């Protein structure tokens, strides 16, 4: 078993004695493609600069292919690690060929013109990245996608065993992003190069890497396969924004989308909304209400229900019933207390049966007491009570002035809210 490509052993590192990375340990085996993800300021770039020796660790040790980093001379390090930066600019009119040739600056003889072998290496690197036709073009005049291919050709000519990609595709359009990543995959496969990338692009990372390392505040928060790292809860905690994670059934590929903020210039701060939900039907609406700064309460919900779990995770006040049990008078009383305090009541798209129809009765009381009620359309289709009492209750709610909604986007503008100045921060 050969030594791993990269080992971080309890590394603390930073600038001018301010630690950015805190006690970071991980190992990248040779031949892996891994990605380090995390929000701005998480320490991704510092981590990369530690690997390339630009930032010296305050504590801990790093080893590259079994060699302690601090013992490696610059030229030796360059044979082990190469970097594809976010972009490379030069004010000089170097041709593409000259730039690629520079990748071998520490292996070519300075007192001789390039040997046949050197030339062959440059040719191979250019052919590999499909920049041979650009060889006499001036690098500075190429498009961003072409420039990145040339930089990769330069790194291929350098021929390192570990390739670091520093946000290498973030300036590129989707097509060129794919092109570069495919190229990197080939370098990994054909040259056996280990690839460690740093990326803001969670979807790209999930697509191309079998392993993700999630960094936050200089510490590793999660490390593993994309499906274990990219969970909504984990990402929300790290990125402080709501995200949707979806796995495509056919391909298994994971897509992360940040949830839109629904009310950019309004706030529900100080307004209480009670949500009647269950079975995950109220998850989205509770999340968004919470994001819009409403004080959200929920119930009555059964313990163990998806909505209950989410409400608890969001720190909401919930009236909870025992698992799989009909609502008891005691729980209904607890719910009534919450409803009484609320400024409005929202009924989500939950199915109604004999066990939970009592919730709707409570809602009716509230409406009679003069509080606005918002029903999700289509209770009839979700009514499983033997006597269709839910349908009847819904009918009477509508006639008494309850308003209906289809999606959270419809609902939010209907709710009471206060205007707030948009702040830039």
């Amino acid at each position, binding site marked *: 078993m050969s030594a791993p490509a990269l080992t971080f052993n309890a590394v603390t590192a930073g600038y001018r004695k301010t630690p950015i990375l805190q006690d970071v340990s991980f190992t990248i085996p040779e031949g892996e493609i891994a990605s380090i993800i995390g929000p701005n300021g998480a320490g991704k770039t510092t981590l990369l600069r530690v690997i*390339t*020796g*630009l930032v010296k660790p305050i504590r801990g040790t790093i080893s590259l292919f079994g060699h302690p980093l601090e013992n490696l001379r*610059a*030229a*030796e*390090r*360059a*044979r082990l*690690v*190469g*970097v594809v*930066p976010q972009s*490379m*600019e*030069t*004010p*000089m*009119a*170097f*041709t593409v060929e*000259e*730039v690629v040739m*520079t*990748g071998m*600056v*520490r292996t*070519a003889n*300075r*007192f001789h013109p390039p040997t046949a072998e050197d030339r062959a290496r440059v040719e191979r690197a250019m052919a590999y990245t499909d920049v041979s036709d650009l060889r*006499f073009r*001036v690098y*500075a*005049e190429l498009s961003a996608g072409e420039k990145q291919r040339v930089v990769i050709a330069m790194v291929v000519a*350098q021929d390192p065993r570990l390739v670091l990609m520093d946000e290498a595709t973030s300036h590129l359009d989707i097509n060129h992003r794919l092109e570069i990543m495919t190229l990197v995959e080939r370098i990994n496969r054909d040259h056996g190069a280990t690839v460690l990338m740093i990326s803001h692009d969670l979807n790209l990372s999930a697509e191309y890497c079998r392993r993700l390392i999630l960094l936050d505040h200089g510490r590793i928060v999660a490390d593993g396969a994309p499906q274990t790292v990219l969970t909504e809860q984990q990402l929300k905690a790290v990125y402080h924004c709501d995200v949707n994670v979806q796995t495509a059934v056919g391909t298994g590929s994971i897509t992360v989308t940040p949830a839109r903020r629904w009310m950019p210039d309004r706030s529900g701060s100080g307004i209480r909304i009670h949500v009647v939900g269950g079975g995950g039907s109220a998850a989205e609406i509770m999340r968004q209400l919470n994001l819009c700064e409403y004080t959200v309460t929920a119930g009555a919900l059964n313990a163990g229900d998806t909505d209950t779990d989410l409400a608890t995770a969001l720190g909401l006040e919930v009236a909870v019933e025992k698992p799989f049990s009909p609502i008891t008078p005691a729980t209904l009383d607890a719910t009534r207390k919450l409803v009484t305090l609320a400024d409005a009541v929202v009924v989500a798209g939950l199915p109604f049966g004999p066990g939970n129809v009592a919730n709707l009765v409570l809602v009716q009381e509230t409406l009679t007491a003069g509080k606005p009620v918002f029903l999700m359309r289509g209770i009839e289709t979700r009514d499983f009570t033997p006597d269709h009492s839910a349908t009847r209750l819904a009918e009477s709610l509508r006639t008494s002035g309850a308003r209906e909604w289809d999606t959270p986007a419809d609902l939010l503008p209907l709710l009471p809210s206060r205007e707030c100045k948009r702040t830039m921060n």
Partner: protein
Amino acid sequence: MNKSRAVLLVLILGTPLMAWLCLILGSSGIGFPDLGTPIGKAIFSLRANRVAGGFIVGAALSCAGVVFQALLRNPLAEPYILGVSSGAGLGAAIAILTGLSAAGLAWLPGLAFVGAIITLTLVFTIAHDGGSPSVYSLILSGVIVSSVCSSILMFMVATAPVEGLHSVVWWMLGDLQPAGLPMLLTCGSFMLAGALALWSLSPELNAMTLGTETAHHLGIRTGLIMGIGLVLATMITAASVGLAGLIGFVGLIIPHVIRALVGPDHRRLIPAAALGGGTFLMLCDALARTLLAPREIPVGVITAIFGGPFFLLILRAKRRRGWMA
């Protein structure tokens, strides 16, 4: 590329030709001096001294300019950017105004060189802040030290007697007055060694122009190369300032022109700039000697007046291979 090779070939073949041309031009008339007569011999050695001096000073300045522009990644960088000119000027002014320069030929270039080296040391010490100095702190401390030296120089000039004043101003405009063969040989070999050392750093200089971090990733000890490169370039600048005073334009424009002609690869650029800069200054000095003969025009005046328009044309035509940003 073949075109840049052709330019290099023209420079290699053209330089001796131009040197010959400069030898037959002089304030005593046009024509090769008659080596059979003592006067002819004297005129020949005088002209040969000037031609050689012009060549080595021009070559050193444009080499240094190339290196400064590459390391500082700044198109306005020139050999005097780190304040070497003011330091050397101060040294020269001291030599002239204290009368030391009249006592021996070596005093003026010697003190100018010492002034330049002291300035360089000061600039590096100020810019050095723990790690390796950044480009900005180098340029800034260069400007600061240079301003201080200039102010002292201006004070000395303002309080100097008239005849001393004339010498100082003349020196500051650039002057290739013969300094004697030993001085030429000393400075010449010093500059040759420096230029060859810089030439041998060409691969590193190429990588550094792709950015300090990229160079680091390619395995270059950037701090070390920056230090060695700047010190060597400043040393040969200091030697040229000692020999010929402050000659502007050559170290700033010749690198740009030659880069536009042969491309930015320093393996070609440095020798081409040395030949181009040397020949250019040699020609300028020939003009300075003959245009208003027997009066001499300061060579620093000629470089810009005649070089300006000519090189402007080249740069316009070859913009695509010149500085891109």
